[in-house]
């Protein structure tokens, strides 16, 4: 059939723990989410078959929506008549630990970093980055690869016509490790070679017998050029050919779907990219899960994704505490934290990840951890989302080994237009205002930024649908997936003392109101502005503050309303909380009240 004419879509996302199925139908001329079903993922024993979870989730969806989607254990696709089955069945997957990759390059800050970006953009979890200058000894690298058992390897390094020696050495390291892929005993490890084209033969001579080598164009053909797309396509292809073929039940699932299965993070990336493109905006999306936090950013035309593998809200919650430190976590709660009790509490959350906070203090502790997980993950993202390094000066390759200067991050918080949050702690916060506040503290956006959350973590399904039917994906994303919380205006800088004016608003709302307010340093304010409403006008910071045009310079802005409203944040960036505990606690409660939240003593 003509895909353009399709009006019914069933899309599943096979996650590590849960398989989620959604049904999208065209009703009265527009595409809408009709329902969602879920079931435990069944990649592991005793089922060892991903399709069991898929069928169970679709069964629930069928029961909830009343539309017949299954004929026995078969998904009805293409549809029968108007009321049975769907035109397209698609699926994404991160089950069984997702796509786990090791990448390698010659120089850590150059080709290895490009390789990491290529793998992350293809939806992989990068479990290690090897480079000749990574500070490890040869045997340490070998031990590490052996221990990790990646699904595949991406090897880059050298510009075209550049070093061959280091690549042959890297191939030697890989051969020495002689690691086997995670799935499929007896299969050769897939290795994508995307380094100096002149070293292809040398690399193949060394590892060709033991590994399945696929040559791709160099991801860094010249120092000043990065060409990630071919390597990313090869990763996706090998993911389907090797990893998916070996994963339990995926052969069957692939025979059911109307298109290729896509790694979940790759699909989320597509959704974010499509959204940013359509809005003509810079966007940053976060998925804060139990084990990992993924960040996706689009600045201009540059897309970046990072996975902070050990920052999460259950499985990795203790790691957030370990990395952030108790002081950083406790600064966000307005009461005394007993450290031993907090540690035991977080350990218990780690081992019983499905529990939920019952008391308000318990919730605030979890949200404090989330702020720190967001902060740490964004720091990580900023490090990788950078311009190409090594192109400032002419230098030989050996000079470049000592190159340490950091390239400038592409993540410009002042230029950022949208922040989209997803993951249980944000999407299911008891109050949307809490979700907005967590993102403001964790990410510290600057100037004017619109905040939103993904209602039920539908971005993977929207992303894969956008490949097949962009119109349907776009409509459902805006109407049913994205919950706009509202714009935030954040003043960058610090006043001399609390209470001095930070900025003035002179706005006219779309429903005819006039907003003329002065927001003070150290203050947060929530101004009612409903979903669909806008407020246009001038924001004028005082001389110590900047909202986008420089200190003291006014900006013209159009602000969006949402389920929270318009938040004006005069607390100052970078964020500094009062050192004195009593003052800090009082301030936290003052801000909570200003945002319409409860005080906690």
């Amino acid at each position: 059939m003509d895909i353009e004419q399709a009006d019914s879509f069933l899309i599943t996302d096979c996650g590590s723990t849960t398989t989620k199925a959604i049904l999208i139908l065209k009703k009265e001329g527009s595409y809408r989410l009709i329902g969602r079903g879920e079931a435990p993922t069944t990649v592991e024993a005793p089922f060892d078959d991903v399709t069991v979870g898929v069928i169970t989730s679709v069964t629930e969806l069928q029961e909830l929506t009343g539309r017949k989607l299954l004929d026995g254990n078969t998904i009805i696709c293409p549809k029968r008549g108007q009321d049975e089955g769907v035109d397209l069945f698609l699926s994404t997957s991160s089950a069984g630990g997702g796509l786990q990759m090791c990448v390698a390059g010659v120089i850590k800050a150059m080709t290895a970093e490009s390789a990491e970006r290529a793998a992350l953009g293809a939806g992989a979890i990068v479990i290690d980055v090897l480079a000749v200058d990574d500070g490890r000894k040869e045997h340490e690298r070998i031990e590490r690869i052996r221990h990790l058992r990646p699904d595949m390897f991406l090897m880059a390094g050298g510009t075209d016509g550049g070093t061959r020696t280091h690549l042959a050495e890297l191939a030697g390291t890989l051969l020495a490790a002689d690691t086997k892929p995670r799935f499929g005993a007896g299969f050769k490890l897939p290795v994508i070679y995307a380094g100096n084209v002149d070293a292809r033969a040398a690399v193949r001579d060394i590892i060709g017998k033991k590994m399945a080598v696929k040559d791709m164009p160099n991801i860094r053909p010249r120092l000043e050029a990065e060409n990630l797309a071919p390597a990313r396509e090869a990763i996706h292809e090998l993911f389907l050919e090797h990893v998916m073929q070996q994963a339990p039940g995926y052969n069957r699932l692939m025979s059911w779907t109307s298109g290729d299965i896509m790694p979940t993070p790759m699909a989320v990336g597509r959704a974010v990219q499509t959204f940013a493109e359509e809005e003509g905006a810079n966007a940053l999306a976060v998925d804060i899960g139990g084990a990992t936090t993924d960040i996706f950013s689009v600045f201009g035309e540059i897309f970046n994704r990072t996975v902070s593998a050990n920052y999460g809200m259950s499985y990795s919650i203790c790691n957030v505490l370990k990395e952030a430190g108790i002081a950083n976590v406790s600064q966000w709660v307005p009461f005394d934290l007993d450290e031993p009790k907090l540690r035991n509490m977080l350990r218990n959350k780690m081992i019983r990840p499905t529990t939920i906070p019952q008391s308000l203090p318990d919730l605030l502790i979890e949200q404090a951890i989330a702020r720190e997980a967001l902060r740490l993950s964004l720091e990580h993202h900023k490090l990788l989302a950078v311009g190409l390094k090594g192109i400032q000066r002419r230098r030989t390759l050996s000079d470049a080994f000592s190159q340490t200067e950091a390239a400038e991050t592409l993540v410009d918080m002042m230029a950022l237009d949208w922040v989209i949050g997803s993951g249980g702690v944000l999407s299911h916060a008891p109050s949307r205002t809490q979700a907005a506040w967590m993102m403001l503290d964790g990410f510290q956006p600057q100037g004017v930024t619109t905040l939103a959350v993904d209602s039920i973590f539908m971005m993977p399904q929207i992303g894969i649908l956008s490949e097949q039917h962009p119109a349907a994906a776009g409509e459902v994303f805006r109407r049913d997936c994205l919950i706009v919380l509202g714009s935030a205006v954040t003043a960058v800088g610090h006043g001399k003392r609390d209470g001095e004016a930070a900025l003035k608003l002179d706005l006219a709302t779309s429903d005819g109101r006039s907003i003329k307010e002065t927001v003070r340093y150290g203050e947060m304010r929530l101004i009612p502005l409903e979903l669909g409403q806008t407020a246009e006008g001038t924001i004028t910071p005082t001389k110590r503050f900047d909202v986008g045009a420089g200190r003291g310079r006014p900006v013209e802005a159009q602000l969006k309303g949402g389920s929270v409203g318009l938040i004006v944040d005069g607390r100052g960036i970078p964020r500094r909380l009062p050192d004195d505990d009593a003052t800090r606690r009082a301030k936290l409660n003052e801000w909570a009240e200003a945002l319409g939240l409860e005080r906690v003593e």
Partner: protein
Amino acid sequence: MGTAYTPGLTVTPNTIVRKTRKLPIKGTVLVKKGVRVEPETIVARADLPGDLDQIKVANLLGVNPGEIPQKMLVKLDETVAEGQLIARTTFFFGLFKSEARVPAAGTIEYISDVSGNVGIRRPPKPVELTAYVRGTVVEVIPEEGVVIETPAALVQGIFGVGGEREGTITIMPEPDRTIEPRDITDALRGKIIIGRRLITGEALRHAARAGVVGVVTGGIVDKELIELLGYEIGVAITGDEAVGLTLVLTEGFGEIEMAQKTFDLLQSLEGQEGSINGATQIRAGVIRPEIIVPRRDGAAPGERAQGGGELKIGSRIRIIREPHFGRLGAVTELPPELVRIETGAMVRTLRAKLNDGKAVVVPRANVELV
């Protein structure tokens, strides 16, 4: 909608335990289907590839990498002995020479005229897989391993550290007290010791030194675990810790007492040989630590036991989250509607009467069956 299911850990005197034992790479299975095995029986063996020595021959000889093939005295795939000369060059009409020798015996795996390196693979290293539990081989997975089955008592813990070990189940003389260093005696060598409450980090270290193979307690205080390990566990994936013993917690972290049912079962197994494994992974394919004690009578149960189950009025539960963490009670009501809790979230709850008579409302996600 008055019913709900809740997770729980398996604690049963009689179930069929099946253990799949697989080699890390393909190898040889040494036992046949139907054979009885002991925990230490070697059921499969494989040869892990030996280490690869990479010799920088071009550097050693002081020649360009492209000249290496002409300087080599051995060929690809040739076997070499420790110290054997593999490449040589001479200078000044043979007055000076440079040589490359191998550090250990092996086979020439590659000679690179690009890097100038030569790779020599050492002989394979054998790896042996034990049965881990006493039982019967019910399935042979050709070249990979076996499935072993045994009727056994099974206790799943909530968290553990340390790998597979075997020992004798031994209840501490005063099980209701925290296990201290003074409680660890030489008589506990080879034992899996059981206490209902806590153990200190120092006592754990004493126990490892005294040859105790396993420790099972209700809980542990986080800092005591750090004291044992010497570091903080960031993510919940364990089993490889080199701490000299295996620790299994049945309930969690902090002051929390082992459930009566679990303690009663372990007490009934005193003196019997069992297997213990602390490996825990709380993610896809959850792995919980375990104590397996094969039944002496070999009697098989009617069906396989599973943790968790249906929450009903009267079900015995433990609350696993603040503000009533660790408290035990019984379900008195399962309201079908969503209830707004203190955080403001609308969730499914239950009413329970705690053992001290207090009535509480808790989210269903925050209880487990005991």
